[in-house]
């Protein structure tokens, strides 16, 4: 059988100041799935996401990416995993660091060995996808928030990851960009984990939804079932917007 894209076992984590954010998360995501990761503010979604490529060291529990254990000690393995798992951070300022947008998007592919015309092509394409081509020579920190978010998405797309993890990708995007991003995600043949507070967006894009609450998974089902289970939603500070209905 095919190894699942992601397999998380009993993952627990406390921040250095002692705050425990994850209390034993178990989750399996198969290749090609698109899964929405829902949950109230402070549930631990970002903390979980940061584990998926070894940014937070796994101190308790295990994570497997395409069958390979994420292990902070194993530098080579980590490097490989990081080229497979692309994370779009919740805060674009954490993601962008090069002097120009173009260099920033080129950073990942460059490290993967691309050079010259090939590199150029990847960068141009990624920027075109998110509609930021004309900003190529601008410094990223001189962009509007939504523009920074789009560039952040481009930096990750340019790396062609097999597993794409997006932490609230739609926030601060204008509605058209939001739809365009959905179109991009649908067109890619990758596993997608998307953290979001935007229920309609989750419904539109993901077949399956998982709710993380207070550091554990409390629901894992078809998105439709999750979003129509009123008690479940209410218990986890989730609701559908006024004026919105499923079907």
């Amino acid at each position, binding site marked *: 059988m095919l190894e699942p894209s992601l397999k998380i076992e*009993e993952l*627990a*984590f*406390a921040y*250095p*100041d*002692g705050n*425990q954010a994850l*209390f*034993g*998360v*178990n989750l399996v995501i198969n290749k090609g799935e698109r899964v929405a990761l829902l949950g109230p503010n402070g549930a631990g979604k970002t903390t979980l996401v940061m584990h998926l490529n070894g940014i937070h060291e796994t*101190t*308790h529990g295990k994570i497997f990416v395409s069958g390979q254990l994420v292990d*902070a000690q194993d530098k080579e393995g980590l490097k490989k995993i990081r080229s497979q798992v692309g994370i779009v951070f919740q805060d674009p300022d954490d993601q962008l660091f090069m002097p120009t947008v173009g260099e920033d998007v080129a950073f990942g592919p460059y490290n993967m060995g691309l050079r010259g015309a090939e590199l150029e092509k990847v960068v141009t394409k990624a920027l075109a996808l998110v509609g930021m081509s004309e900003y190529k020579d601008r410094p990223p920190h001189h962009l509007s928030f939504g523009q920074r978010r789009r560039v952040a998405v481009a930096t990750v797309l340019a790396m062609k990851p097999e597993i794409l993890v997006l932490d609230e990708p739609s926030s601060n995007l204008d509605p058209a960009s939001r739809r365009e991003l959905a179109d991009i995600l649908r067109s890619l043949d990758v596993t997608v984990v998307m953290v979001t507070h935007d229920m309609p967006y989750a419904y539109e894009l993901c077949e399956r939804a998982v709710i993380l609450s*207070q*550091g*554990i*998974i*409390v*629901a*894992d089902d078809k998105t439709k079932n999750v979003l129509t289970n009123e008690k479940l939603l209410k218990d986890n500070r989730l609701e559908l917007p006024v004026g919105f209905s499923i079907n």
Partner: protein
Amino acid sequence: MHIPDGFIDLPTSGIFAAASAAGIALSLKGAKKSLDEKSAPLAGLTATFIFAVQMLNFPVAAGTSGHLLGGALAAVLVGPYAATLALSVVLLMQSFLFADGGLSALGLNIFNMAFIGVWVGYGFFLLIRKLLPKTKSSITIAASIAGLLSVPAAATGFVLQYAIGGTATFSVQTVLAAMVGTHVLIGIGEAIITGLAVGAVMASRSDLVYGWRGNSSLLEIRKSI
């Protein structure tokens, strides 16, 4: 205390440049063990802070300039080896980018600030930490006192170099008195900054402090579906 070009003669500069190169080589060996993925950027940030703080140059009585050194601070945060490297980098960049400290005097400056400042500071830190109870605030106090003492120590290094190869005509005694005297004053500022910075890091990210190894808390596991 950044020595400019032509202030100490060439042979002396050469000797200290060689000494600095040797010291950096040793620190590279030592730092390899303690610097990992996460602490390498901390060394960079420490360098940045010291860089920023050292930009505040103010003249000292006898004519030379004084400023904070940051040697003890760096040693407590990232360990003495990485601190030596961080300070050397600061001095390197200052001389290349801002003409602060002569290019030919780099060896002299690295010796005073990146070696004496760091290692004397770290030595005192270890000593004082031993004398105090094992608490978080002891770390802050020890770092602060180490900061105070490291400054005149580094100034003494300058006087030594001056005695060997100084091109100026002031007597060594005069320079010694002026340098050490004023640097005790600067040391007080150094102590305050070091204490504040170490205290702040201890308060919310004690895991980052080299001079303190706290014990990690136990994790609780809850039932998930």
